């Protein structure tokens, strides 16, 4: 039993989960300290309200409804984090996901409001637009050696202004927001297929969530179980070695960022086609969803299934920020906590290294004092001699 525990401690997945939990707890503690500094009395209530989110609501029915709201916003976050994850596994930091998200919003809303296309066509157009944008970043990286972080940031701002210009043509006449989809073009809205009944008739809950989960599983399969995914990862590890082995490394880079762009844009379509929010046509900064996707991707240990959980958690505390006492604190405290968590995620490698060091040291001690030891990675027992002979350690 103890041996099983020890081999579990050495497994990568377990260490990733422990590291992520550690990041979350430290991030929450620092957020609590900030609340304490601002005003000590309300700090405990503040942080618990933030964590409880929809449980703050007075009855079960409302709780379910607001859980539904959180889920509606989790779907695009899952897609954005998958976009970042996919590109990071190939060694590219797709910080342009925020701009690709914008482009997805622009194309899907325009297709819905100006042309009245059915929802699946809007989503398809958004996907193609995002893929195109990603492909341009990829071409710049592969052929012109432009760092994808810088070009991604440039495109974030270019797409923000371009989308503002485009959607100004379909906005309400008296307000800077785009026309409400439910009034203009009902067939562009995502179908709910009964999901809304599950969440107390919350009309915004649609097939977006199950779709996001299916896509997460698909990304996992592509990356880990197909030859295509293997080629992409190999290109990420060492471009020249991959080229030497015969892989088309330029094509791989372009395809990777294109897929990342498609995922982010699809996430945008999944959110805005539910009619939950309307786009503000003079938005002056890129929507945070793309950047929260970075947090969710790293918190999830760069694993698609982990991303599902971490996206929900990040969205949970982001929504929870709205419940803190606005008279004394501001809702940005949840952004603060999220960014501290992702800062700490940079230390995950170090945390794992420390954990492995302690495990190795305790194993050495046990080997030196001489008793029954499992072979590393298995459950078979080996008797280790007093003087240390009889093993490969």
């Amino acid at each position, binding site marked *: 039993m103890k041996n099983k525990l020890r081999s579990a401690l050495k497994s990568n997945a377990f260490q990733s989960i422990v590291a992520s939990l550690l990041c979350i707890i430290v991030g929450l503690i620092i957020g609590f300290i900030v609340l304490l500094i601002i005003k000590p009395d309300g700090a405990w209530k503040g942080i618990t309200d933030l964590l409880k989110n929809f449980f703050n609501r007075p009855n079960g029915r409302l709780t379910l409804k607001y859980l539904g709201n959180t889920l509606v916003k989790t779907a695009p976050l899952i897609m954005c984090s998958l976009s970042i994850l996919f590109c990071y596994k190939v060694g590219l930091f797709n910080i342009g996901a925020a701009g690709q998200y914008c482009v997805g919003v622009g194309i899907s809303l325009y297709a819905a409001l100006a042309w009245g296309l059915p929802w699946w066509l809007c989503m398809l157009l958004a996907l193609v637009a995002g893929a195109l944008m990603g492909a341009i970043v990829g071409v710049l990286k592969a052929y012109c*050696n432009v760092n994808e972080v810088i*070009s991604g940031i440039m495109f974030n701002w270019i797409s923000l202004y371009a989308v503002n210009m485009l959607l100004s043509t379909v906005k309400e006449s008296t307000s800077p927001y785009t026309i409400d989809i439910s009034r203009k073009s009902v067939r562009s809205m995502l179908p709910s297929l009964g999901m809304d009944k599950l969440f107390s008739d919350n009309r915004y809950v649609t097939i977006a969530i199950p779709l996001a989960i299916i896509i997460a599983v698909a990304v996992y399969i592509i990356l880990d179980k197909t030859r295509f995914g293997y080629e992409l990862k190999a290109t990420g590890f060492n471009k020249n070695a991959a080229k030497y082995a015969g892989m088309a490394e330029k094509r791989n880079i372009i395809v990777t960022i294109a897929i990342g762009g498609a995922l982010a844009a699809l996430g945008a379509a999944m959110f805005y086609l539910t009619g939950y929010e309307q786009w503000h046509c003079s938005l002056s900064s890129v929507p945070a969803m793309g950047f929260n996707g970075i947090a969710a991707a790293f918190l999830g240990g760069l694993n698609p299934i982990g991303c599902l959980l971490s996206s929900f958690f990040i969205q949970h505390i982001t929504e929870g920020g709205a419940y803190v006492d606005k008279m004394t604190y501001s809702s940005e405290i949840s952004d603060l906590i999220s*960014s501290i968590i992702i800062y700490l995620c940079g230390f995950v490698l170090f945390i794992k290294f420390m954990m492995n060091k302690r495990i190795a040291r305790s194993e050495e001690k046990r080997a030196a004092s001489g008793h029954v030891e499992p072979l590393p990675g298995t459950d078979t027992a080996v008797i280790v001699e007093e003087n240390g002979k009889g093993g490969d350690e």
Partner: protein
Amino acid sequence: MLLLLQYTLLYSSVLILVALGGCFSEHSGVINLGLEGTMVIGALGGALTMHFMPNLPAPAMIIMVILISMLAGLVYSLLLAVASVNFKADQTIVGTAMNMLAVAAATVIVKAINIAANPDKPSATLTYIAQKKAFIVNIGSFEFNWFMLVTVIALAAAYVLLYKTKFGLRLMACGEHPQAAASVGISVYKMRYSGVMISGLLGGLGGIVYITSGVSEWKFEYGVAGFGFLALAVMIFGQWKPQRIALSALLFGLFRALSNVYDGIGFLKSLNIPSSIYNMLPYIISLVVLALTSKKSRAPKAEGIPYDKGMR
């Protein structure tokens, strides 16, 4: 036209200061993507100085603001330094996290201050209309800003420091081949810390120059509107050399200034180009320029790679 020159010089100053900061950091081997966040924190420090000490005489005001924003930027950049040098963290993630953290922290702090002063109006804005006048000297109808002088001094100092002193040459060695530098007895950790701290200094200074250029109040929810990344593009286009950084900063500053002043210029106004295009122009130009010049781009060889004493 004079207004265009004024705004160009102001925006170029910001870009030069921040790009020089990035230059120092990358020459020492640490990619500093958190420059945007450092600008926000430096701007916050300077704005808070002006908010809490509104009645200083002009020279004292200038000196205090500069010192405190530099100090704020320096302390914030320690986050990057500790993570990337001691803990060997991934520098791109840490930089991105610092950007998000700075905007969130600045908003929380400013809102807390505003709420404490007046509980009915929570806003993330700080105003400094009167204090800003300390920075400006009117030469005829041209508003000369003291920060422009500071930028020229910083540019000259950076050039001398990097290329003409022992410290600068050793710093650059740590970014090209840290193991070789270590073999001669240079402490790579100390050099990288210095590089990142200098970039924090300059980034903080750039931040305060940005928010006092042309406006008298700043809404901290917006961060610095992507200027930090524009400065990184300037640095790459300038090939990590102070002289070329100055020239590329002038180019980008010109386009950024155009979006502010285009309806004052006769023939541009008659072209009737929508304002969004002017907003996009600096970024499009950066992309085109980067696409054309990055092929032969020679970044410091060991930048972004955590220093490992054991490797060759």
